[in-house]
């Protein structure tokens, strides 16, 4: 697991049934592009988060494929429809096989 990786997610705690809400996510990650060289002139191998998904009660909201051109500490903002009370599950997939997860509950009413 890459060092110091920490997901942050901003989801409203409440919504109306069927409301469209804005979600923001950020994860601390170097997103080593594979284009940089170290002091000895050797290429620093690529090490990025390559996929991010957001699901609500098992149904997909967004599925993002990330390339090395995404900035350090990948940030996403997007909208989701909330049909009922439940849980958002956010998942980040690292090149090194690590998977980082975060969940947020939202209540209708």
């Amino acid at each position, binding site marked *: 697991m890459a060092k110091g990786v920490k997901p942050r997610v901003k989801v409203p705690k409440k919504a109306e049934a069927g409301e469209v809400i*804005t979600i923001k996510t950020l994860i601390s990650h170097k997103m080593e592009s594979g284009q940089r060289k170290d002091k000895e002139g050797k290429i620093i191998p690529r090490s990025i988060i390559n996929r991010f998904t957001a699901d609500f009660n098992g149904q997909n909201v*967004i599925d*993002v494929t990330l390339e090395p*051109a995404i900035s350090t500490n990948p940030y996403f903002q997007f*909208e*989701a429809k909330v049909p009922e009370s439940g849980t958002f599950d956010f998942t980040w997939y690292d090149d090194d096989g690590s998977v980082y997860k975060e969940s947020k509950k939202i209540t209708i009413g």
Partner: protein
Amino acid sequence: MNLTRRKLLAVGSGTLAFASLAGLPAFASLADDAMAEFTGGAAVTDGGIDLTAPEIAENGNTVPIAVSAEGATEIMVFATGNPTPKVATFKFGPLSGSRSASTRMRLAKTQDVVAIAKMEDGSFRRASSTVKVTIGGCGG
């Protein structure tokens, strides 16, 4: 004044293409390859998709962009002047609240950023925006 930046760019690049017809093969770039890979070589029309990017980025490390295309199932973003032109692909699921997303990207130099949307009917839409990447201060 109705001459938009995009029209101006279109006029500019049209002239350029005309002037350098002989050099056409050079146009087949890494970016073109990446875009063709996404569209499967299908025709791509302008419009029906919004790409928001700054005209001038204070630092190429963190350039905020937003894409939006009503009726899109996927939107892919390309940085045509980066060593690897692919940036990200947004696939919208059944609970997406809109076919839009924002992120922050890296730009190696001044270049065109392109967003292509794959629509529900299988067609492709395209928008592009030139972002100037500046080099700061006394060489920092």
